[in-house]
């Protein structure tokens, strides 16, 4: 309960700082929107030249992309660890965090969150809804339940992977560029996985399981039975990866000695 109250306080402070520059805030909304629209434009344009992508029609691909936006937006609202190395290690902010009686990772998440990214959930539902509307699927209450469950699982997968990557900074204080690299790998998860080379499919399932963020759960929601067990495994994969993330983080915190003297 204490954590929730703390979260509320952090949230209020954040909104105050953001609303001080209203136009900037609005501009960010619009650019987020634009960025997501580009991928949609790509899908719309290419389907002018083909009727399917390895067996997936236009509306299915749109629905997969829309679904992907939901966990992706929740993730990007709460895991903004991109400049962790610079801000917390090199500038020594982590020392301040460690002296406080709340788990260090939780504090950093609250300090760096950008709740306005949650607008992407709305965009995602809209895009996915548009795709599904044209697909003649019957949605039961169970499907909505799975939608929520899979989205949470996807967020955990993303959060876990990025916590592991961020923890690297705790072991070595030299800069690594692994985060942007993995970010670009994650874009592979928002298209049907069977268009990729076999090797990439395996990597996206077992090594960097980004297929569990977008494609596998979406395929279930689109009534494809082929990846049923993969889709069902989404929450489990999420828990495993987040567990790994928190474990490497805690180990890293134990080893952390600070960058200064």
């Amino acid at each position, binding site marked *: 309960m204490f954590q929730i109250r703390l979260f509320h306080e952090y949230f209020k402070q954040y909104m105050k700082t953001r609303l001080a*520059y209203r*136009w*900037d805030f609005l*501009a*960010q909304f*619009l*650019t987020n929107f*634009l*960025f997501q629209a*580009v991928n949609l*434009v*790509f899908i719309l*344009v*290419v389907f*002018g*030249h*083909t009727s*399917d*992508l*390895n067996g997936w029609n236009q509306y299915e691909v749109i629905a997969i992309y829309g679904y992907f936006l939901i966990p992706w937006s929740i993730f990007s609202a709460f895991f903004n660890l991109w400049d962790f190395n610079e801000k917390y290690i090199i500038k020594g902010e982590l020392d301040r965090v460690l002296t406080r009686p709340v788990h260090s990772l939780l504090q950093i998440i609250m300090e760096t969150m950008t709740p306005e990214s949650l607008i992407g959930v709305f965009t995602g539902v809209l895009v996915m809804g548009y795709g599904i509307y044209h697909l003649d699927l019957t949605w039961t209450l169970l499907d909505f339940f799975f939608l929520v469950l899979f989205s949470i699982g996807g967020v955990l997968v993303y959060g876990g992977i990025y916590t592991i990557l961020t923890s690297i900074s705790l072991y070595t204080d030299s800069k690594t*560029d*692994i985060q*942007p*690299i993995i970010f*670009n*790998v994650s*874009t*592979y998860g928002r*298209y*049907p996985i069977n*268009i*990729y*080379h076999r090797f*990439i499919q395996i990597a996206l399932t077992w090594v960097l399981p980004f297929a569990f963020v977008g494609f596998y759960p979406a395929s279930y929601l689109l009534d494809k039975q082929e990846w049923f067990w993969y889709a069902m495994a989404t929450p489990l994969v999420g828990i495993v990866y987040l567990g790994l993330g928190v474990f490497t983080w805690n180990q890293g915190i134990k080893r952390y000695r600070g960058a200064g003297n």
Partner: protein
Amino acid sequence: MLNMYWEVVRIRFLMMLAYRVNYYSGIIIYSLNIGVYYFLWMAIYGDNSSLQAMTAVQMATYIAISWMSRAFYFNNIDREIAQEIRDGTVAIQLIRPYQYLFVKAFQGLGEGIFRLLLFSIPGMIIVSFIFPIDLPGISPAWGYFAISLFLGFIVNVQINLMTGLLAFYIMNNQGLIFSKRVVVDLLSGLIIPITFYPEWAQKIIMLLPFQAISYLPTMTLVKGISGSQFLDAVLIQLVWILLLWIPIYLVWRHARKQLIVQGG
């Protein structure tokens, strides 16, 4: 005079060289991007050997060339200009005996040359091993491509200068800079070759300057364009280079006056 600007290019090149480790990851990132679009386009082609007068191999080559060209023409001078306007250092730049905008453009060139040599060329070699692409051997096509690529670079620099200068009027133009980047990637033909757009969209895009950045140079190499077709492409690029100086000049002249008001 030119010597001085050449020095700007050299210094920026050396500066980039000092941080070269950052660029190894860049090669991986660009290869990943080439990868995702390669697989997508190959799935789009499916059993078709050719779409919109482009074969599947030409498409793969197009993707590789356009991304590796982006490494050359892409730069952050818009962000730098906006930063210098915000923190006021642009005032010092103004009293120095050079043209601020040219200095920025040449810094961009220094960055571009660095990436071309240490990023695009090794990246292209790696990519050509991974993906089945078809590059011309030693042929004049490379010369034509080089000319067109350089002109594309200038157009992109001009758009960046324009975006950066808008910081004189919009205090926080981060969002604008980011949107511009997304629009350029989409409309320059980097993500979708322009011939793949629906007819009505093509008509609009052909009236915009963005095609000069990526689509025209890449097509020169992929299709081995030469002769009058090549001249047409270069002419479009040159016209845009001339046209784009007008708004930049006007904004720059007006903005400098604004700055005096702010400083006074």
